[in-house]
């Protein structure tokens, strides 16, 4: 047995892990009977079905006729910068306010590009802050914490 299709192999493992996870947790909820199902009935069987499909995908990835595919490399720097920028926005919004959060988001995210320049990003950030502020805060009157906590009265 040889893993011919790495991508399917990975997907099969992922499906099995997720399916079993849902099925095992579902055991904690009341199962009930077919006529009077508890909250655990449907998720348990759905989880088992998912795990079964995962197994099938896994087995087929080792089939002698499976197409040879490798999992493309993960670019961890980009993942970290983009996800990090969004998480930073979430952390900063309630503490430092809308304006700071948007500027930080733009700078951290833009630095993931190979063509990053400080000047271009600063212009972009200024434009986006002005635009979103006038659309969301002034125009649509949505509630945001605007200024950092220490500047609010």
């Amino acid at each position, binding site marked *: 047995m040889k893993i011919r299709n790495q*991508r*399917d192999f*990975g*997907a099969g493992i*992922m499906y099995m892990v*997720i*399916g079993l996870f*849902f099925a095992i*947790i*579902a055991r904690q*909820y009341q199962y009930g009977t*077919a*006529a009077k*199902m*508890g*909250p655990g*009935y*449907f*998720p348990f069987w*759905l*989880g088992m079905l*998912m795990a079964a*499909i995962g197994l*099938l*995908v896994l087995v087929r990835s080792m089939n002698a*006729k499976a197409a040879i*595919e490798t*999992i*493309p490399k*993960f*670019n961890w720097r*980009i*993942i970290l910068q*983009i*996800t990090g*920028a*969004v*998480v930073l*926005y979430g*952390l900063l*919004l309630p503490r430092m306010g809308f304006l700071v959060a*948007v500027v930080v*988001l*733009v700078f951290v*995210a*833009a630095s*993931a*590009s190979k*063509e*990053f320049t400080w000047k271009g*990003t600063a212009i972009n*950030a200024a434009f*986006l802050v002005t635009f*979103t502020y006038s*659309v*969301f805060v002034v125009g*649509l009157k*949505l*509630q*945001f914490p605007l200024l950092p906590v220490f500047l609010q009265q």
Partner: protein
Amino acid sequence: MDLFANLALGFDTAFTLQNLLYCLIGCVLGTLIGVLPGLGPIATIAMLLPATYALPPIAALIMLAGIYYGSQYGGSTTAILLNIPGETSSVVTAIDGYQMARNGRAGVALFTAGTASFFAGCVATLILAAFAAPLSQLAFKFGPAEYFSLMVLGLIGAVVLASGSLIKAIGMIILGLLMGLIGTDVNSGVSRYAFDIPELSDGIGFVAVAMGVFGFAEIMGNLEKTGDDEGFLNKLTTMVPTKTDLKRMIPSILRGTTIGSILGILPGGGAALAAFGAYSVEKKSSKYSHEFGKGAIEGVAGPEAANNAAAQTSFIPLLTLGIPPNAVMALMVGAMTIHNIQPGPQVMTSNPALFWGLIASMWIGNVMLILLNLPLIGIWVKLLKIPYRFLYPAILVFCCIGVYTVNNTVFDVYVTAGFGLIGYLFFKLGCEPPPLLLGFVLGPMMEENFRRALLLSRGDFTTFLTRPLSLGLLIAAALLVVIVALPAVKKTREEAFAEED
């Protein structure tokens, strides 16, 4: 025939300067807000609902209906240009629409979406006017067993959305169903898979999943590629479709309109299933089926027509039975009750001016939208000329703000970031996300109808087979599996023969 008298009354009501103005304001606001990533029809209507409190009832409903269509148009625009669907039905538009945009045919894609929606909207409005009462009886024929079987059929159909492996697509559907179950169980009140996180007890938001899996993952995928920055931005062509384009889109629009009009009437997943169903039909019936997923015009025309037709006919259960078939219609019920109108069969008889006025304004709204949007296409397409290094931070900013405004909580921002990672993993493993989103939307409804059907049959699983309508739907689902599986079988055989040569 009362139809013409009724329609005349409707146009009489709608064609006052005041009502036309509110219809226009609604369409404009809806389009402009709907085009912002992350703000779909539900968010847009919820946001603008208070603005209509002070209006007379008819004007308020006309304006809300305008907002609804406008935001749907706007949502398709972001789906096509940026691959960020704001609601369930534009997930389907994004598949081929975004690919068309990447091929430099963004203008044609937007034009197709616009005309398909317009045509479907006009036809469905006529259907609504002529058959509102008899069609609402169809919804009565659907018990829980039928709904469950319909959803099975819809989900099997969603498999066609994926262009890769069949079995992996089924896995994604089930994953979506499972994710849809997160949150409080409506029957027992038990909080499932929430792990004592209060924000999770309401379930995960559709917007967070869609933006993470599509928008964020797409950005990370694009940034990895080198020299892609100018890639699809420079070969922009006109918005005028060629003769072949027209020839290919017209039958798709007709089929999409039919599918959408019928499915829109069904409460629950009807409108969402319509776009997915239309896509499946197009992909299976087209002789260009190899182009699907790579920018086939039918993949935009069919689902957009279905989506808009369903948006119109989903008013039928609301206006005739008082049952809101989806979240948007539930908001409309809220708006009606604020104005002291009890939605239901009596609206048609006790308040005919309102009923027919609303129907007439739907048609007017569609005309306004096409007039408004055709000139706007040029502007939207220019957005793609913005270099990617400026565009993607802007997309992130809009997504972050949009997802925050849905519930006013940063928790949703983190959920979106998490789904961005998951979407990236899917991308690397070759798992396609569109089927996941349909499963996600239908999950709770499917469980509820499954449980209800078995409760009614006292635990007898054959109930799905003994009820004729349910059996018919399941047979259709089984046939669909065969049809979907056959080309794959044939293809591998062809490949095997090719190797022998």
